[in-house]
């Protein structure tokens, strides 16, 4: 794997990881702060 490929891999992987962490954090805090969702398509918990 070349330097350039590694550059792309590091950059995209980090962004993807951070995005996933953000979404997970938001979901957790939504449950904590506001509670369970009803009536929608998704059910948490």
């Amino acid at each position, binding site marked *: 794997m*070349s*330097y*350039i490929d*590694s*550059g*792309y891999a*590091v*950059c*995209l992987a*980090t*962004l993807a990881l*951070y*995005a996933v962490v*953000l*979404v997970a*954090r*938001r979901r957790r*805090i*939504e449950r*904590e*702060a*506001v*509670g*369970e*969702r*009803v*009536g*929608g398509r998704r059910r948490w918990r």
Partner: protein
Amino acid sequence: MSMTEEVSAVAMKAMKDHQGEPRPVIDDELHRRLRPRWVRVTGVAGLLGLTATVVLGLWVTPPDETQGNLVRLVYLHPPVAWVALYLAFGLAALSSLLYLWRRTRSLFWDRLAAASVEVGVVFNALTLATGMLWGRPTWGVWWTWDARLTSTALLLVLFLGYLALRRVPAAPEVRARRCAVAAIVAFVDVPIVHFSVVWWQTLHQGATVLNPDLSPTIHGSMAWTLLLGFLAMTAVFVWMVSIRYRIETLADEAVTRSLATALAERWAEDEASGTAPTFGLGASSVPEEVVSATRGDPQMSVGEIVR
């Protein structure tokens, strides 16, 4: 912005409606308010744009005259740096100023600055990482202490300090003021980073697009791909900040709510035992984070906390 109050009102109403059930419920209306459509649209745009940039950058654009295929990192490294330095830290400094200015003082700006700094720190670290992975094959070294690299590394440490300061428990207004000062001081480094390649002789090359003449020195499909990279990263940034902002708001809300619950329990106890309703801040039934949130801010009266 009255997001907290909105959420709070809905939550309180839900609590009343569902007596016996301690947890309120997100109905569809609240859900829409928590996650506006434009956030999702920006996220998808960022994802698509980034995918297109990668495809164009790695497989479609031509190699460079001197750098050959090594040039391909130009489609990621400058856009990432652009997000970190100008968008994220710029937004953080601007919101901090707006928070400190009495007329626009609102916790909205404080939360926006916090969200922006965290995303900015991620992008700043990525700027350094991609830069090193580019520098090794092109310059021949991973790292060198020229003005551009050194000031960028310093920037990361400065804003890591901001995040550390933010983690210290304090009343929201106290924390906001402290952090706003720290963000503005840290931002002073950004113009230094930007102009370092103009002021001094550095190993790092000068700016391609935002150069003093403002005439981009990149041609054809390379220029268009670079532009696409900038746009895509900007969209990704907006998406990330809006999500991070929501987390920040809801976290504050969670603290307020746990405080309200603790107080309600306490009063119920007092009424049951018939003692006068007193509230000592060190009382055992109040959680630690609640105590630290109220301590040090004499203006935050208990009535205000409970709303």
